[in-house]
């Protein structure tokens, strides 16, 4: 079972004050702490679990500048065997489709049974790289995957639907799956583990290595362009619940009940 996992380095914005840059199209990196995208953490773990079960290799792929090597080292420490970093200044401004194009060039000649991406990235949240990549490769895909079982050269995967429903689909291999959080419990990656991975070789490839031209990537090669980033406007719908803890919790429970929160 040879598996390629696509990972992305993203800022942790759970509690940070996000500042929009002067160009109104990007976010100021400033003091933001970066780490592997949450969904990708589960994707890497799932790939390593399958490798531990069926044998084979795990190759981690990322796109970005030198700093993204930290993310790949984390993948090595989790259990990846190889890592590829796709990097070129021309990649700047690429949308999900252009990124899928770049990854496609890097993986199309590799031997693989499965390609995993996270269901989405926590920064731009497009959720499109996986499906577009599958389309370019001509392989089937399944999104929002919460369980993967392999038998007789096929995968049976569970997909998360709305309203707490799941569906099970059978997919012939090779295939692309976008992995949902909660599919597994990602292992802890120790500092010693990351240090041991420090000497491992990371392959890099740029525009020309991938057989692409500047027209294929960046804004020119994209189908969408970010026009303007802005913080959501403050609305006036918020209700501040007053009173003692007993009164407040009764009121809160009533609101949740009225909105259909308890079923």
């Amino acid at each position, binding site marked *: 079972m040879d598996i390629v996992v696509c990972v992305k380095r993203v800022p942790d914005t759970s509690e*940070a004050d996000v500042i929009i840059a002067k160009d109104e199209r990007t976010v100021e990196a400033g*003091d933001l*702490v970066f*780490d592997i995208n949450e969904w990708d953490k589960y994707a890497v773990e799932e790939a390593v679990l399958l490798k531990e079960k069926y044998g084979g290799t795990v190759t981690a792929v990322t796109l970005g500048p030198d700093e993204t090597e930290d993310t790949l080292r984390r993948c090595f420490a989790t259990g990846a065997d190889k890592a590829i970093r796709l990097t070129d200044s021309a990649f700047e401004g690429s949308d999900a489709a252009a990124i899928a194009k770049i990854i496609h060039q890097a993986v199309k000649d590799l031997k693989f049974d499965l390609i995993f991406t996270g269901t989405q990235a926590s920064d731009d949240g497009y959720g499109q790289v996986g499906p577009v990549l599958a389309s370019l490769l001509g392989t089937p895909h399944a999104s929002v995957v919460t369980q993967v079982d392999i038998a007789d050269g096929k995968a049976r995967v569970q997909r998360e639907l709305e309203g707490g429903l799941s569906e099970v689909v059978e997919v012939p291999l090779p295939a692309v799956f976008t992995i949902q959080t909660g599919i597994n*419990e990602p*292992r802890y990656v*120790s500092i010693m*583990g990351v240090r041991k991975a420090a000497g491992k070789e990371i392959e890099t490839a740029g525009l020309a290595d991938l057989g692409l031209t500047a027209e294929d990537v960046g804004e020119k090669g994209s189908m969408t362009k970010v026009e303007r980033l802005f913080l959501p406007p403050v609305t006036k719908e918020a209700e501040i619940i007053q009173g003692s803890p007993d009164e407040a919790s009764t009121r809160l429970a009533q609101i949740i009940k009225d909105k259909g929160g308890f079923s």
Partner: protein
Amino acid sequence: MQQGLAEKYELFGCMQCGKCTAGCPVSLRGPLNIRRLIREVMIDRNLEAAARPEFWDCTTCSTCSLRCPRGLEPHELIIGIRGALIEEGRIPATARDALEGVFKHGNPWGRIRSKRSEWAADLGIKDLSKGDKADLLYFVCCAASYDPRVQEVAKALTDSLAKAGVDFGILGNEESCCGSEVRRMGEEGLFEMLVEDNLKLFHERGITKVVTTSPHCYDAFKNKYQDSEIEFQHYTQLVADLISQGQLTFSKELNKVVTYHDPCYLGKQNSIYDEPRYILKSIPGIQFVDFDRCRERSLCCEGGGGRMWVEGTDAGERLSGIRIRDAVEMGVDIVATACPFCLLTLEDAAKTAGLDGKIEIKDIMELVAQAI
């Protein structure tokens, strides 16, 4: 499982007397049996540790090590076993999140660094990270920086130090976790990294004297950082000195019956038993009574050794619950302690027992600040 644990922790010296297990507070309520574990490690080199969640029950309170007649340190064996599990990545998810929080944000709650010194925003405290100079660094601790309840302790301490005329400052948002609990959870690599980074920062800022809120920070600095150029103190040591030298005086009476809960990292592990009691007895009006289980025999609150982030497998009554029950039977108004984790676990136990309002859980420093 890692080879060589028996050699590393000198387990062949064990005569299986069982004093460790007899004294172990968590074996009161759960399956962890440290005497049996020592035997198992000696005869079975392939101990399947990941399947034994009780290894995460240990609070590393060190009662076992204190009582061992052969001078062994059984609690360090637990840390060693956790270390092997850490390298395999097989640890409780909540412990994982705490360690990742320390690595990414410098605190086990994963809170953002830019809010670390928010509690001190309007207090006019010197900030050494902004170039201020002071004789003493107050090392606040992650719990006192972010937990609203423990922030009260930090405010009481800084307020009292200012009134006593002590020249002190904090490291503001530059302060990072001391790593005490990181080491106790077995993440030696991350602990070494924190030691290196913190000592570098202390030296860069010209710090020679440090006082801590938490016995956990104090223990790590004093016993594991071991920097010959920096003097480390727990605040109870400093405040006891300030009182005895007349720099800190009281103007109000506190007419309450007060007992003191010895934090394991302060008492059992660093033999600081007298200073906290001296401070409490110095406060006018306080009628001090000791727990039956006090000093070396103090019952652990179960907040140490990473247990703030790991629920534990044990089904019996929480030790903090037993502690509160004992305090109620003694008829005390206030249980005082000198550790953020003890404060939080004991207060939770009081609330769970429905005793909120009937018995107060206070840090010694809060009582000092009230009586100044």
